[in-house]
């Protein structure tokens, strides 16, 4: 019995309502977790001596717009001793997506959660310092959302050079 199988059966026993489903793609296991029981699942994964997932590798956020639930969070956790990786998936609604923060369990969640907040506008309840990490502090909007405009500016060529020159704001000394 592999460590991954042991993990899944332990979670199924312990959280019959929190574990919403499992999916496998080419050997990668994804467990869908209810956002209400995320903190409990994560704490169990870390503290249970037979599981011992001691590293949170990364957190990713996906915008599935226009599907509903629109957002998904991915947590990649790793058990170093068993060399096993596991992916947790949490679905969030399009209006006011808020997930519980797990930075109290793995401190390495702090900055990835800030990144997900900055780029996707996903809130994290209980985060110690939730502010933008990549964009300037006064930035409006969340750039990685699918409905965010890319901000394309017209490219200057010889045929439209004068027209763009006329309206471009050049800095002065």
């Amino acid at each position, binding site marked *: 019995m592999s460590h991954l199988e042991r993990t899944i059966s332990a979670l199924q026993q312990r959280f019959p309502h929190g574990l919403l489903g499992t999916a496998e793609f080419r050997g990668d296991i994804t467990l869908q977790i209810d956002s209400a029981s995320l903190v409990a699942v994560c704490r169990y994964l870390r503290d249970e001596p037979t599981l011992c997932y001691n590293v949170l590798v990364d957190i990713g956020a996906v915008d599935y717009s226009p599907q509903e639930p629109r957002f998904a969070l991915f947590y990649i956790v790793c058990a170093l001793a068993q060399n096993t990786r596991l992916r947790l998936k949490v679905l969030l609604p399009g209006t006011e997506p808020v997930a519980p923060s797990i930075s109290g369990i793995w401190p390495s969640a702090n900055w990835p959660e800030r990144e997900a907040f900055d780029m996707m506008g996903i809130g994290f309840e209980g985060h110690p310092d939730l502010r933008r990490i*990549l*964009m*300037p502090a006064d930035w409006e909007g969340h*750039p990685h959302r699918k409905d*965010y*405009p*890319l*901000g*394309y*500016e017209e*490219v*200057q060529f010889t045929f439209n050079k004068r027209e763009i020159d006329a309206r*471009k*704001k*050049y*800095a*002065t*000394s």
Partner: protein
Amino acid sequence: MGAEQKLGNMGVVTTSLETVVNWGRAGAIWPMLFGLACCAMEMIATQAGTYDASRFGMELMRASPRQADLMIVAGRVTRKMAPVLRRLYDQMPDPKWVISMGDCASCSGVFNNYALVQGVDEVVPVDVYIAGCPPRPEALIDGFLKLHEKVRGEKLARWA
């Protein structure tokens, strides 16, 4: 040693103040030591032995903007970096010049999106633009020479 002896038979050179000052300025432009992206690698190569910017009196990259005459914007400027860049420019003493090195600094290159300033000339006034992605050291040196040309042609009325 008296003045007569020192002058010897060298004679007298007459010139204008403008020419002398511009000659002095063009011969010792100190760039500021900072790079923003991959263009900085080429800037470093320009300073190193093979290309040797000290041939143009530009070997001294100053880490402090207060000792620099030239800002080489080597790389793309993010919107977050733009106020920092402008602040560095404002801290440089007059006279000062700006070289926009590479496509990204000049017009944001291939990155036409929300995150980058579309041309650093929106933030600081640029004297010389250098094309290339990134420009080779030869191109940067050509930009230096173009800047020297410009400095040598500056008018007294402008800097007085």
